[in-house]
């Protein structure tokens, strides 16, 4: 399911989405998405994240979950609290190197491959399906 969150500032709208029934805790899904958006350059230093309340309402999840994700990202230094405005992407961070971005993708690939092998799919069938999804998702 996709929800569109308009950031309350000038930035282009972007999508956060969560899958409550995936095994990954929702707060980690959110953290991964913010990291991915930053690594991929869709979120730039100085950009504001939606407020906790707004994010929780858009995604229909508990506010505590969003707070937890933000707090951890703050500890990591990826985002910082801007008084009276909310959370913004920190300045010092730059777009991740290709290697760093690949590293981020690794756990998901591990899961995908494990499940695909379990389902008895061939390498070719797996790659085909991934490519098909890429074609559908890329604008």
């Amino acid at each position, binding site marked *: 399911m996709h929800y569109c969150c308009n950031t309350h500032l000038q930035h282009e709208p972007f999508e956060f989405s969560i899958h*409550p029934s995936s*095994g990954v*805790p*929702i707060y980690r899904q959110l953290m991964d998405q913010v990291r991915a958006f930053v690594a991929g350059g869709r979120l730039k230093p100085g950009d504001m994240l939606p407020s906790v309340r707004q994010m*929780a309402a858009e995604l*229909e*999840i508990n506010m505590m*979950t969003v707070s937890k994700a933000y707090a951890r990202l703050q500890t990591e230094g990826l985002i910082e609290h801007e008084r009276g405005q909310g959370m913004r992407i920190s300045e010092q961070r730059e777009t991740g190197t290709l290697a760093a971005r690949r590293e981020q993708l690794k756990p998901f690939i591990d899961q995908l491959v494990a499940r695909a092998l379990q389902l008895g799919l061939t390498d070719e069938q797996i790659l085909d399906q991934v490519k098909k999804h890429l074609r559908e998702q890329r604008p």
Partner: protein
Amino acid sequence: MTDFAIRTGNLWKNFGSTQVLRGITLDIPAGTVVGLLGANGAGKSTLIKCLVGLLRPTMGKSELLGDDSLHLSAEVKERLGYVPQDIRLYSWMTVEQIIQYTSAYYPKWDQKLVEKLITNWDIPRTHRIGPLSPGQLQKLGLLLAMGPRPDLLILDEPVAALDPLARREFLRSLLEFAQEESKTILFSTHITSDLERVASHVVMLKSGEVNLYEELDALKDRVKRVRIVAEGDFPPSFEIPNAVQIEVTGKLAIATVVGADDALVSLLKQKWTATVSVEDLNLEEIFVELNSQITPRA
């Protein structure tokens, strides 16, 4: 000092010779949203009835908002919302009449919220209660419980009779309700996907005992499925520390492990010269793994 909304100490409830609750001890802090899970007959409804004082425990005690469950003061009752599984309301009243009637008991009744819920949940305000469908009746029960904006909301299977759309609307309202920080919600359910969005904590009952009580996120971080493919067949003595389930077929072992971390993975890799992958489990899978009757292979 932490403020507890619900406390029970070694709570037992027998029906004749059947022990339904067997020593329940729970401290639920104010401000949490707790999902109560358990197989049929695990004791969820009995626990809830003991909490709200509708059943007298055989032994042990239970407190809501600081009051003994069996002697709730008027102040605490004003701050408590409860919806039983089986909702009974005066069938001759109309929806509007029952709302007006109920509101008279609560000084802090929030008519604005009620009006909003009537619209969002599509409740027929002029209809008589008698002919309402089970789903409409459930919605009405929930509305009457939320109207006083209670500090503690206890719901027994609140979504059982609701269709998927109504469930979604209800969850949205529940989340809005929970946004006020001091609100505590305890609800029992079988629909784990609903719980995954809303709940901050999970209580799992198994045969009348608390099998598990922890933060939902922590639970998902902790319980994992580990898949191990070794070079040769595993010996019969094969075991994994903290595994709740192990299934071995030749050189493939699949285990559900509590606290699967990097250390365990590298240990398994080395010991069995194996490839090891760790998969996340969702709440339903965790529930099934922790409740299934198969005893772990020794």
